[in-house]
Each structure stands twice: as structure tokens, then as C-alpha cells.
């Protein structure tokens, strides 16, 4: 979580300030019982006595990302609770080629993915079979896959074994 906080602060420093919902869904009456239970006072959020909205992000994230030991367990942790544009929170390397690039990037810093993603984020796509399964292959792939596979045969094994090839290519009509 320290890494995530540092990353969010760095993102904010590098890019424009993320767009927040207006007005923010921050209701003092709603928060009061939780703040009282956590023995938190005004200055715990309004750091340095600054009452100009919005309060600094770490104040919110302390409870809503569970970084404060006193954080109530029921504080909503979804980013879009406060942030209006989810794309603004994307790390700078989540570019247009990310769909094909994320595998290699995750190999270099697998733990960093876990700052935002659960295990099920991987399996949600990578366990798919049958109807509803997403395919990363673009138009023309049925005719071009022979050459594309020859350009990097190991990459096919993310989803397929060789039995996918032989299912068609062992019939004789379509030799390998």
C-alpha cells in the first residue's frame, strides 16, 4: 500500500490533478460515526488545519485504501467512488499497446500489478473458454496466423497448446 500511495502521489505530480466527482460524495454526517469509532479528529484529515476542499489525497486513501491502522473495514475502496475519470489514474506505461505488452511488463514487476489488480483480473481473461471468450486476434488472422506463429511460436502458448494446431492441420487438407 505504501507503494500504491507513492505511485498515486507520483502520478499526481507528473500529470494533471485527477478529476474528482463534483461535489465529492463526502458527507460529514455519514463519516461522523466511523471517525468517532476510529478516534479521529478534524486535523487527521485536514492536515495542517487546511479546510479548503478537497483535502489532500493521502487523507482519503488512509481509510479508503486501508493504509491507516485505525481505518474502518467498511470504507469503500473503489477508485471511482471519488475519481470521475478512471483513465486518469492509469499508470503512464498503460499505453495503446498494453494489451499485447502487459505480459512482459508484469514479468519485470509482478508485484506492482497487485497494487490495483486482484488475481482474478488475470484469470478473468486467461481462463476463458467457449462463448464470451475474448480474442486478441485482429482481422485476417485466420490467413496470417501461420506466419505470425513463425515469428514467435512461444507466444501462442499463453492460450494454446500444439493440439490446437493439429486439430486442423493433421487432417491433410491444411498441412503445417
Amino acid at each position: 500500500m505504501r507503494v500504491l500511495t507513492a505511485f498515486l502521489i507520483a502520478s499526481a505530480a507528473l500529470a494533471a490533478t485527477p478529476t474528482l466527482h463534483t461535489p465529492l460524495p463526502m458527507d460529514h454526517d455519514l463519516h461522523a460515526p466511523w471517525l468517532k469509532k476510529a478516534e479521529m479528529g478534524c486535523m487527521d484529515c485536514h492536515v495542517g488545519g487546511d479546510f479548503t476542499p478537497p483535502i489532500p489525497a493521502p487523507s482519503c486513501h488512509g481509510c479508503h485504501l486501508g493504509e491507516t491502522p485505525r481505518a474502518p473495514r467498511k470504507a469503500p475502496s473503489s477508485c471511482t467512488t471519488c475519481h470521475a475519470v478512471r483513465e486518469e489514474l492509469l499508470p503512464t506505461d498503460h499505453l495503446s499497446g498494453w494489451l499485447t505488452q502487459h505480459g512482459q511488463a508484469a514479468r519485470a514487476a509482478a508485484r506492482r500489478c497487485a497494487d490495483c489488480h486482484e488475481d482474478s483480473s488475470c484469470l478473468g481473461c486467461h481462463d476463458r473458454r467457449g462463448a464470451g471468450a475474448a480474442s486478441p486476434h485482429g482481422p485476417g488472422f485466420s490467413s496470417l496466423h501461420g506466419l505470425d506463429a513463425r515469428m514467435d511460436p512461444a507466444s501462442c502458448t499463453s492460450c494454446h497448446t500444439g493440439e490446437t494446431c493439429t486439430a486442423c492441420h493433421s487432417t491433410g487438407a491444411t498441412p503445417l
Partner: protein
Amino acid sequence: MIAAWIAALGLAHAGASATAATEALPDFYGDPRWRSRVGVEVTQQAGPWRLEAAGAARDTPVPGLDAQADLLRLRVSSTQNRWSLDAGRSAVWDARGFLRLDGVRAELRPSSAWSGQVLAGRLWTPDPTASADTWLAGGAASFEPDASGLTALRPRYTLGAELRADGDQLQPRLHAAAAAWSLAGVRLLGQAELEPSTDARGQGRATLMASAPLSGTVTGGASLRWEDLPPAGLPMGASSPMDWIAADGYAAAQGWAERRGLRAQAGAIAHQDALGGSGELRLRRSALDVFARGAAINGAHYAGGGLGTDHRLGPATVAGTSALYRLTGLDQRAGWISETRLDGEIPLGPLRLQTRAAGGVDRLRAPWFSVRVSLCAGGA
């Protein structure tokens, strides 16, 4: 399948995440078929403990697998200060890549710099035609020195070993990696994996990879790989396209750069029998996607490109992609191939109707056309 649909919608109403999709694929060449998939996912968090369960039942056109029910995930996990535990199906990511494990994985963090991982279970692959059954047990230790600051590189060094078994066959694997990343967007990786063998020649794979922001608006990366060992996620007895294309291994290099939606990518492959190269240029501007691609290897080559677009029309979404390529195949036959896809999605209350119409000319110069109509619920 109708009962499964009703069950999925009932569970969705009760608060579970349920998905359902049924596809009709009318085939204009005499083999119409339909396939269906109904899935349910439940996640429950209680303190540090988390339960995830997901399953799916499906009808597929794959011969010999007319219908199948999969328990996709049943996972209990707990994350504490010094340890975490996963039991069930988990996605295991490390410097070697990705594998799907049905089993147990535990991670220990005795200090902020040192961590260890042990795992045991059965490899799972989403390929429904795969028949191999591989069990593995192994572990890895990592050292991650403290680093702070926006530009500081955060290194991580890992050493690991595992034993794989398929029937009476046993295979050990060793792996080592040095990786680093920074908050400013730098990623570096050096990794090697080895399968010692009683044969004169053991098998291995290795990767060198770097990516980083090159300026305020340009990001780039490059990688160099040697592949002479099936990736970690592939079961032992399963064949792979590597067996036919580059049985003695191959070297692959790739480089890419991106600036404000304009992406250029080039790659090369070299092995005993061939030297090949590929390139792609892609521009994304709001709803427009323009691309050009080409590749050449073993005397075969293709070049071409296309464009795609997507729009929202009230509650409906429509998208189209079209591409045209000049292909000279491995048999030296040359011809034009094309494909156009039109996708649409219309919400119908809690359901969605998705359609895809696609058609074109294939490498045998035969025109083809297909339609798929899907009725979906949830995130399917």
C-alpha cells in the same frame, strides 16, 4: 442450458456476479452451430480472509467436448503482515511469465527485504483440447533492497527451483531473475530458466527486457529472448508450436516506441532454419484506429493494413474493423486477403444483444462470411 441461465440470473439477483452468454453461429457452408457459457462468480471478504469461487458450464463445438462444466476458481486467500496463503486456482506471475495453478501457494515475508514463495499443485491450461497432466512443487527466494524516491530503481533478485511430474517422468527446473522498476516508469528484467537434462543438451530460455519513458511524450522498450524451453505455463506432455517451427530453439528481438497514440513496433526472429522480421505502425486517435503491418520469414511474407472505428449511438455501441493484406504463403502462392468485422451491442434491460458480422477473402482466395449473435447477461 435454459435452467443454467435461470440459475445465473437468480444468483445475480441474489447479489452474486453471474454471467451468461449464448452464441448462435449460423454457418453458410452447412455447419451451423451454437455454443453457450454460463458462469457464476462469488467473492467474499471477511477480515484478511478472501473467498473467490467461479465456475462455468459450456457447450462447445470442439469435437469430443460437447459439454463441460469447469470449476474455474475456488480460492481462499489470506494476506497478513508476514505471510499470505492461496489455496485453489491462482494466477502465478513471476519473471518467467504466467502459469495457472490448481493448488497451494504460500508467500512468507520475514523482513522488508527478503521474501519466499512455495507452491505445489497441478498446472491448468485453458486449451480444452490439451490432455497433458502436470504436477509441480517448487519455491523461490527473493531479495528486494529498500529504495525510495520517484526515480530510484527498485531492484528485486530471485532464485528458484521446482520439480515437475507427468506420470513417471520427472523434470527439474531452475530459474533466476534480476528485475527493477521505478515510479517514473522504468522496467528492467534479466531472467534465465534452465531444465537440466541427462541429454548432452539441456534446454533453457532467457530474457533481457527494458522499457522506459524516453522523453516527456515518448515511451519505448526493447527485448531480446532465447526460447528453447516451453514456457512455464505449458504442461510437460503438451506439444507446442515451437516443436514444429523451431525445435532447436530461437532468438527473438523486439523494439517499440509510442508517442501520443502513435506506436511503432518491429521484431526479428532467428533460428536454425530461418531469419524473419515483422513491423507494425498503429495510430489511435479517439474513435479511429489506423494500422499497417508486415512480416517476412522462410520466403513467405505479407504486408497491408486497415482501419477501425467505434461509436456510441444512444444506448447502442457499434464498431467496425477492416483490413487488406497481400500475402505470399509458404507455398509461394500470392494473393490478396481481406476481412471486415462489424460489431454491435444493444442493451435489453438486464441483458445485452451482441452481434458480429464478418466476411472477406481467405488465403485460398475463397470468399467467406459469418454471423454470430450472442445474448449476454453480466460481464460475459
